[in-house]
């Protein structure tokens, strides 16, 4: 046979390989399986009722708001361990501002957002300008902000818990934008989450900046050599993560009417877990916003599923850990297969 063969070709890859290259498909199958299992076990006790469904959508939204931005940061090759503490600190700014300083709600929210952006900028500068690992910098931030939250709360209000926010702001219409609820089922926070997911997914996959996020995490030096402003990309993402922490803080403080010094604790790990379940790699360069959204839904379904199935809440963390391990193993195996020559 004397077919003119081009000197060099790209081989076709199988459909199966193209599916495992998209880890959100696996995550979606896992979510569906868990949902069906809980529907069979706890369907009678309300898992399938409107309020039951709303309950896990709302839980997914709370973790999803921060894990969406954390995913972008992870893809860019950095991590923020302090996101939970940011939520706590920003919540305290809103609560102390409205109850103690007598600020109107808009001012308290703006102050909290300004703090978050400044904090994210500072972390970003420390990481990119001094080349320090974000793990250590944000571990410092985790303790610094958590300690400061408790300290400020006790110094100003003599307790680590600030209530009476609803009384202080009265019937400020701005409240509905963060704490509203539709027919007492799905919260406004859920819409924020969906909106964030759409915006982040479009940025990541359809814009130049999204391309730069992947490149910065894939290989910072190769990206720089191609003219990508890696430092700017990372600083912007640290700021976006902190800003999403403010959003979650506003949702929590305004729906509960209070701020607690310990609120947001563990969110840094939940965000990482949802991202990993959705196929985002902790070493940067790969990941998907939709995957993380599926991960957040999985968290919500498992948490409420256990509740409706009558399983003690003590088991929630153990099951979360198990799911994380399974997801990591599956992703690892899938990636190794894809890149095997």
């Amino acid at each position, binding site marked *: 046979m004397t077919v003119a063969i081009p000197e060099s070709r790209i081989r076709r890859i199988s459909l199966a390989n193209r599916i495992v290259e998209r880890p959100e498909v696996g995550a979606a199958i896992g979510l569906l399986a868990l949902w069906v299992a809980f529907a069979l076990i706890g369907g009678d006790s309300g898992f399938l009722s409107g309020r039951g469904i709303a309950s896990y959508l709302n839980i997914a939204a709370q973790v999803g708001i921060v894990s969406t931005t954390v995913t972008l940061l992870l893809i860019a090759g950095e991590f923020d361990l302090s996101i939970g503490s940011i939520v706590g600190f920003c919540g305290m700014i809103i609560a102390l501002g409205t109850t103690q300083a007598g600020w109107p709600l808009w001012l308290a929210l703006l102050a909290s957002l300004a703090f978050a952006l400044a904090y994210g900028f500072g972390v970003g500068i420390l990481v990119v300008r001094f080349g320090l690992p974000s793990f250590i910098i944000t571990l410092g931030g985790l303790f610094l902000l958590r300690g400061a939250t408790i300290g400020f709360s006790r110094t100003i209000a003599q307790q680590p818990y600030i209530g009476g926010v609803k009384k202080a702001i009265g019937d400020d219409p701005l409240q509905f934008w963060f704490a509203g609820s539709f027919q007492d089922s799905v919260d406004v926070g859920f819409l924020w989450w969906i909106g964030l997911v759409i915006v982040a997914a479009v940025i990541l996959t359809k814009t130049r900046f999204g391309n730069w996020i992947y490149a910065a995490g894939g290989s910072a030096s190769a990206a720089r*050599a191609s003219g990508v402003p890696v430092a700017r990309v990372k600083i912007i993402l640290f700021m976006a993560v902190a800003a999403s922490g403010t959003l979650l803080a506003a949702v929590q403080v305004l729906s509960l009417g209070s701020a607690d010094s310990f609120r947001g604790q563990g969110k840094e790990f939940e965000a990482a877990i949802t991202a990993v379940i959705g196929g985002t790699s902790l070493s940067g360069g790969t990941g998907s916003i939709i995957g993380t959204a599926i991960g957040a839904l999985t968290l919500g379904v498992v948490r409420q599923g256990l509740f409706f199935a009558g399983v003690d809440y003590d088991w929630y963390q153990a099951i979360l850990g198990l799911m994380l391990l399974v997801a990591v193993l599956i992703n690892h195996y899938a990636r190794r297969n894809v890149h095997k020559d």
Partner: protein
Amino acid sequence: MASSAVPLMEARSVSKYFGTVVALKDVSLTVNAGEIVCLLGDNGAGKSTLIKMLSGLERPDEGTIAVDGKPVVFSSPRAAFAQGIATVYQDLAVLPQMSISRNFMLGMEPLKGFGPFKFFDEAKAGEIARTELAKIGIHVNHLKQKVGTMSGGERQSLAIARAEYRGARLLILDEPTSALGVNEAAIVLRHVIRARARGLGVVFITHNVHHALPIGDRFVILSRGRVAGTYARSEMDEARLNKLMGGGAEFEELQRDLSALDAELKRDRAQAAR
């Protein structure tokens, strides 16, 4: 081989010192458009230092770098690139987890849309990548395929095609074939020859005689920070190049050491037997 009056790039008697270490001393090198200059030398001969000066990462302590006959001082690799000098490094050429078209257009993504709503023009990026890759003989089926699934030679070729697309007139290729098998290296060498045919100047760095010999127009041999010789293609053959590369004297010394060691081992064994 165009031996035009003004060389594309020159290093004129450049020297570089790192503290008390003389990394390069009085090294000169000339590249014309449409010419492949092979830069050869053992590890530590000063190849990397010379490339860093040509590509804008380092500045010479003595001597000058000239582009189109005019002396230049590059503040960064970007500044060098603005003059058409592109360096393709062996390892940081491409991003394996990103698609072919996104890799190709990274940092200069085509956009569509208006005002603040500017989106990455995937179709246009794919079209450019497909056309440019076809020029160098790589035919792509799936532009969304990740670069990590390409072979090493194809990745190098992609990086070279990309540098050329971005307006490079001079390609500095740092060990593009050293990590590759025979067939893969052949793919890359073919692209280098084609780049020359299109009028580009090439500085090809290698320590592999078999890769340099078939494609080089001129050979510059570095040894211990100095130019050990500059040879035209006509004065070069494999035996000679091997001898120059091997650093004849050192090799003889090594053989003497080895035979001495051998004798020592025999003596030890005899003693142990006793």
